[in-house]
């Protein structure tokens, strides 16, 4: 699920105000950026500068005086001088001794570590656990394709190991489910309920996973600002991932692209952050689209339309980057100019950007292009992006993806240790670092077509595969975890072609090439599983998904329903509201909906303009809303739109239950919160057809969208849930499951016997 696509404009604004500012400050390429101060401060600075110079001159003179009069300095050698000499000598001596000791004890320490790890692994019933996450892999589709013999490797896992649905979290949203996966606790203990949370003061959304704060106030030096600090990125997810427990016991883990791991936490292993890593502009992915056509004046939801000028036969434009760190607050983004030269044929063009030249065929993506946004001679920010040549004649149309953080020179910490992203970049070349790298919104907006979107998805998937196989090779013992996002993105965008009644696709389209895209996706994942099986040996393989998928045909605007039923009030004379409750009358509002499944009571003492008293009044209002919403019927579809509504008090347990929405709305299959509802708009209609390319979804009743669990071992588990993974892994490695974990560990049947698939019945990499 992609937040930026669901809350495009808002997210843009939100992240620009909360993230971009910080980013431009934070970029390590500009950690000590020199900033010119405003004109109004020049006078003060001149005075200050003069004073500084005088102080510096006095110090220099004093030093010079001491140096040229050595006799006076040598005249007295007392105990103080002795102590001073000894202490400095002692520091040097100790440093030398320490270095020497560290050097000669290195082999001993190595042996100790090896012995320790032997001890750790002696208790373990698995030496290596490999967890492959396919975001959104649906158990029903998997079962159907296996039944049809299209997924031979998954079928082998089913026959020789384990296959069953995996209960997801409530709500069934990726950041929530993956947080429970890694921490083994319910959302009440890890504090993630959606992509966003709301600010109780302003009723505006806040990113729920991380907060990026500006660095400390920079120091002045003459007329320049010298930054002495880096931005502080704070992870808001609570709870401890299982790899931290493993690390404490000396078990190494490689963790790749698991959502809500930005910023990365320290532990014994390597980690590359996934979902929630921003782009260089600080957003969750802003693409640029260039066209010589007359473009719509309407701002695209998650991108920018940029005009193209023709000059000396070349089309010229620019890529917008982060804000200029030397002029903070002036909203002057840095940019990199580029030009495109159609080469005479209808299908090719030459690009020139920052001294790099490359040619693209129509319908082709470029390799990652390194971009350098220069603010000053030594102040620059580096990123990478890909170009896509959509059309050459009669009109030039070019798509440039969001500018990703360059993994070889990361502007923000995207890995642990920091050099891990550099290592991967050196080994495999540049790769997508953006949390939500597949640009679903560009397809929604028509800037990319289905073919181009698929190409983009598979390019990113190939990068991920190479990273994963490297991590697998580098983790012969311990845990290796990787999440592949492609399954989620492709199903979101192509579900309309497998749903016979979806309003966003015609019958002709369903029978066409895209009707088989999801099946092809599952086949490719099956091939991947085959390749993993051929390399895993005796290890335990877990293949799972965080949730399943259902069609998204009808959208429900919950805020409109609340307004129509008198729970939400608009200001006088207004019949609708813009984004984020722009014209909502909070003094007379009792409930409001925000995000994908959340519904909040406007509580006194909690919200700034709360109207409902805490306690019984809130409880009875929640009961009333639950009852009414569970009866809500779609007049067109003639069926209920909401399967059940969960009361957070009864659903969540833990110290962060207070941050949860008061009610979680579990939509019935086919329905989901409308695009307007999630962004706090109020319109006159409650139900609408979903005519977007974004046509499949999972933010509904959790019981309707369970995930899937496969393993190469037989697992003894009753009604397995995603929250069980963390305790299971700990137990397999012989560690005690912490009592705060909500999950119940699964038992490996016959742990001492090797996996049936490792006794010759290996996977078939070809998928056949």
């Amino acid at each position, binding site marked *: 699920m992609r937040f930026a696509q669901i809350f495009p404009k808002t997210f843009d604004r939100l992240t620009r105000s909360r993230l971009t500012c910080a980013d431009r400050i934070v970029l390590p390429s500009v950690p000590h950026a020199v900033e010119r101060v405003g004109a109004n401060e020049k006078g003060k600075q001149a005075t200050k500068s003069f004073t500084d110079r005088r102080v510096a001159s006095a110090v220099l003179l004093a030093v010079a005086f001491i140096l040229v009069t050595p006799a006076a300095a040598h005249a007295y050698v007392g105990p103080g001088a002795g102590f001073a000499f000894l202490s400095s000598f002692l520091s040097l001596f100790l440093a030398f001794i320490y270095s020497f000791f560290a050097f000669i004890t290195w082999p001993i320490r190595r042996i100790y570590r090896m012995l320790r*790890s032997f001890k750790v692994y002696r208790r373990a019933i698995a030496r290596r656990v490999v967890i492959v996450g396919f975001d959104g892999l649906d158990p029903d589709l998997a079962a159907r394709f296996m039944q049809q013999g299209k997924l031979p490797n998954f079928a082998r896992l089913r026959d020789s190991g384990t296959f069953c649905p995996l209960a997801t979290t409530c709500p069934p949203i990726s950041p929530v489910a993956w947080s429970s996966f890694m921490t083994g606790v319910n959302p009440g203990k890890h504090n993630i309920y959606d992509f966003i949370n709301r600010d109780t003061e302003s009723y505006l959304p806040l990113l729920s996973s991380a907060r990026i704060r500006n660095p400390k106030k920079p120091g002045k030096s003459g007329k320049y600002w010298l930054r002495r600090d880096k931005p502080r990125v704070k992870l808001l997810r609570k709870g401890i991932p299982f790899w931290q427990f493993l690390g404490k016991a000396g078990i*190494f883990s490689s963790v790749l692209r698991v959502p809500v791991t930005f910023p990365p936490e320290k532990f014994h292993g*390597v980690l590359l952050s996934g979902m929630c890593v921003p782009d260089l502009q600080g957003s969750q992915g802003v693409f640029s689209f260039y066209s010589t056509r007359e473009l719509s004046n309407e701002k695209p939801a998650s991108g920018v339309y940029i005009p193209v000028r023709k000059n000396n036969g070349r089309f010229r434009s620019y890529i917008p980057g982060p804000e200029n760190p030397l002029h903070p607050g002036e909203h002057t983004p840095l940019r990199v100019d580029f030009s495109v030269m159609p080469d005479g044929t209808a299908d090719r063009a030459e690009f020139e950007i920052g001294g790099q030249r490359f040619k693209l065929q129509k319908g082709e993506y470029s390799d990652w292009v390194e971009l350098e946004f220069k603010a000053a001679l030594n102040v620059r920010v580096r990123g990478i992006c890909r170009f896509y040549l959509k059309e050459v004649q009669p009109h030039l149309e070019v798509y440039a993806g969001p500018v990703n953080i360059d993994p070889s020179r990361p502007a923000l910490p995207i890995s642990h240790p920091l*050099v891990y992203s*550099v*290592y991967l970049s*050196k*080994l495999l070349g540049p790769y997508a670092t953006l949390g939500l790298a597949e640009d679903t919104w560009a397809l929604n907006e028509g800037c990319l077509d289905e073919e181009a979107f698929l190409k983009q998805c598979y390019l990113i998937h190939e990068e991920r595969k190479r990273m994963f196989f490297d991590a697998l090779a*580098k983790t*012969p013992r311990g845990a290796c975890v990787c999440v592949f996002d492609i399954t989620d993105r492709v199903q979101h965008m192509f579900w309309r072609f497998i749903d016979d009644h979806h309003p966003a696709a015609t019958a002709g389209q369903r029978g066409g090439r895209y009707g088989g895209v999801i099946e092809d996706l599952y086949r490719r994942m099956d091939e991947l599983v085959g390749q993993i099986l051929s390399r895993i040996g005796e290890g335990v393989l877990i293949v799972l998904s965080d949730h399943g998928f259902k069609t998204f045909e009808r959208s429900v605007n919950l805020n409109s329903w609340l307004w129509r039923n008198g729970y939400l009030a608009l200001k006088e004379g207004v019949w609708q509201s813009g984004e984020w409750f722009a014209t909502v009358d909070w003094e007379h509002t009792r409930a409001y909906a925000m995000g994908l499944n959340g519904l909040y009571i406007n509580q006194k003492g909690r919200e700034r303009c709360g109207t409902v008293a805490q306690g019984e009044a809130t409880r009875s209002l929640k009961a009333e809303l639950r009852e009414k919403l569970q009866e809500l019927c779609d007049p067109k579809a003639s069926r209920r739109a909401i399967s059940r509504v969960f009361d957070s008090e009864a659903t969540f347990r833990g110290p962060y239950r207070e941050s949860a929405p008061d009610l979680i709305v579990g939509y019935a299959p086919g329905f989901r919160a409308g695009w307007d509802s999630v962004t706090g708009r109020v319109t006159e209609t409650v139900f609408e057809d979903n005519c977007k390319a974004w046509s499949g979804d999972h933010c509904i009743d959790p019981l309707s969208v369970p995930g899937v669990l496969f393993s190469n071992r037989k697992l003894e588990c009753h009604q397995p849930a995603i929250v069980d993974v963390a305790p299971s892994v700990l137990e397999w490695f012989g560690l005690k499951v912490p009592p705060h974990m909500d999950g119940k560990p699964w038992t490996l049947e016959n742990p001492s016997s090797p996996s049936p698939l490792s006794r010759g019945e290996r996977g078939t990499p070809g998928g056949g």
Partner: protein
Amino acid sequence: MLVFRYASNQRTMRRIKKRIQANILAVRLFPDQLGVVLHAYFQVLCYTFVYLGYALRALAILLLPMLIVLAQLNLRFSRLPLQPGDSFILQAKLMRSLRIESASLRLPRGMKVTAPPVHIPALNEVDWQIQANENGDFWPAVVIAGQTFTKRVVVSDDIASLHAKRVQKSLLNWISNPGGRALPPAGPLRSIGIDYAPRTIQVGPLHTEWWVFFFAFAFASGFAAKVCLRVEL
């Protein structure tokens, strides 16, 4: 730098260099996985050889022009020309079959002999001490067995190409004494030379040979220019 850039496979070299760096990082990232560390070291070693292989191809192309450049620099910077008033020794080595007393010296205007010739029978060599009185190129001549052999002597305040020794024509002599005309292979004279003083270059407090300075400067400028010229070294 530019020749190296175009003579080498820069793309592959860049890729290999990144692989080397990646494997060095792997040692740091996976220290507990002994197999991984050993494999990374092995990879570093292998890729280093591959890298050297790619660099050598370009270096082979650069070898000849580099030798010519170095020889020319050596002619100009390894020795100091004579100054007006300086004395120097002109050495003439004769073939073993000839008597050293038969050799005589003929000086051009602006030079004079300041001591009687010294005969060294063991080497079959005659040395003359000569003084140069003014700036210019001079051609003192050694006359032996009716033949005259000249040797260029440079008296100058400027940098000049100085050939210290004129030798008989052979490949070995050509390499060790580049520049200048060779003596006839079967002639009466084996060599004729001038003892120019060695030149040192002062860089701050250091007095150093020209080639030390040259290589230091070449390395520094090479590393600086490789960024601008985008050359992988």
